[in-house]
């Protein structure tokens, strides 16, 4: 079977943006505990430095050890002419997942996949080895979220890019109400395609209370995680996603009751007089997986 550089299903609570032209930040990126590192060739790099950032990220990917972290690179959009050059530099260097910005339609994903496949083939890399994720940053993109999420088998997830999106909507970011429709669309599109849903950045790094409110909201909605722009945001973000002792105990009790019912040969299990049906079991399994994944990450 072909060896893929990415796993569809993995822990993605935090995806930390790292400016692609800052060697100090690239070298230190690993130590802050983010689940995924996202080296950025797009907005954080000045137009006149795009070439230098490409060399830097290429050499860093080829040389530095980022442990088991998922390595994502945000490229420039293909229509700018820069995106293809970015792909040429990062695919041979071993990037796990390419983040495509400003995805408005399924065709954007298909066009990008075609270029990735060409570059993989040209370099003797198995075609299909590299993963993709699509950032949706416009009203049109949000309305096309379902088609975008299903546009390629390489997609590990779709993400909301809120700054451009709210500008497109003719509003600004406030308490989150302005993003409710986009978040719901992206989440449902991702789930219907069986991929991850990733939330946008929270830019005011000094407002921890506001950040936590937003994190709680996206967790309740069902998102897998969120992009972060400052290492300080990682720990509180992860903490919100870790199941509480109480919930975890209940999840284990549910799984024990299921095991006991199976041992008895009974198809019906109950806990404290309440029947346990399938969705309850799935939620308990997910909760345990999340807690175990968190422990594994801490041990790394």
């Amino acid at each position, binding site marked *: 079977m072909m060896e893929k550089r990415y796993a569809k299903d993995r822990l993605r609570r935090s995806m930390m943006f790292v400016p692609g032209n800052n*060697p100090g930040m690239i070298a230190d990126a690993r130590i802050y505990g983010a689940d995924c590192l996202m080296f950025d060739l797009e907005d954080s790099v000045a137009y006149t430095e795009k070439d230098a950032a490409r060399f830097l990220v290429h*050499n860093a990917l*080829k040389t530095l050890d980022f442990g088991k972290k998922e390595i994502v690179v945000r490229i420039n959009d293909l229509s700018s002419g820069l995106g293809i050059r970015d792909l*040429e530099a990062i695919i041979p*260097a071993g990037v796990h997942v390419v983040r495509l910005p400003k995805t408005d339609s399924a065709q954007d994903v298909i066009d990008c996949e075609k270029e990735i496949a060409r570059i993989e083939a040209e370099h003797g890399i198995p075609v299909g080895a590299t993963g993709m994720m699509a950032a949706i940053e416009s009203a049109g993109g949000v309305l096309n979220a379902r088609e975008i999420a299903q546009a390629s088998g390489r997609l590990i997830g779709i993400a909301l890019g809120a700054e451009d999106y709210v500008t497109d909507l003719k509003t600004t970011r406030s308490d989150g109400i302005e993003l409710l429709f986009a978040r719901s669309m992206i989440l449902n599109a991702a789930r219907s395609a069986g991929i991850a849903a990733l939330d946008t950045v929270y830019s005011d790094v000094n407002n921890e209370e506001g950040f936590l409110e937003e994190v709680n909201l996206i967790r309740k909605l069902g998102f897998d995680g969120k992009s972060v722009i400052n290492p300080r945001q990682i720990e509180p973000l992860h903490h919100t996603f870790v199941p509480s002792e109480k919930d975890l105990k209940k999840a284990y009790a549910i799984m024990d009751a299921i095991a006991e019912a199976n041992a008895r040969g009974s198809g019906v299990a109950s806990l404290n007089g309440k029947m346990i049906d399938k969705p309850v079991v799935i939620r308990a399994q997910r909760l345990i997986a999340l807690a175990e994944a968190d422990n594994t990450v801490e041990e790394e």
Partner: protein
Amino acid sequence: MDLVKTAMAGTMESGDIMVTIEPRTAGGITLDLTSSVMQQYGRRIEEVIRETLGELAVENAAVSAVDKGALDCTVRARVSAAAFRCAQAENDHWEVRK
């Protein structure tokens, strides 16, 4: 690689190296290196700069570099970026990770 104009890449920030390459018609590579870690790593940085220029087939140039504790991969990246800017060219031969 044919160098056509003086060019530079990199910054003076910690962990970076600022590399300036000036085309020459003869005389090989001359290197003027200053580094915040000169005593410990000066020789290694020079080695990486010369190695990278060799791989890019740059034979004659005056190179000056101000290092602020850059890793080897950063030195390589900045020298490459400066050389391609110097040649007014884009890299179209990216090597695969081994």
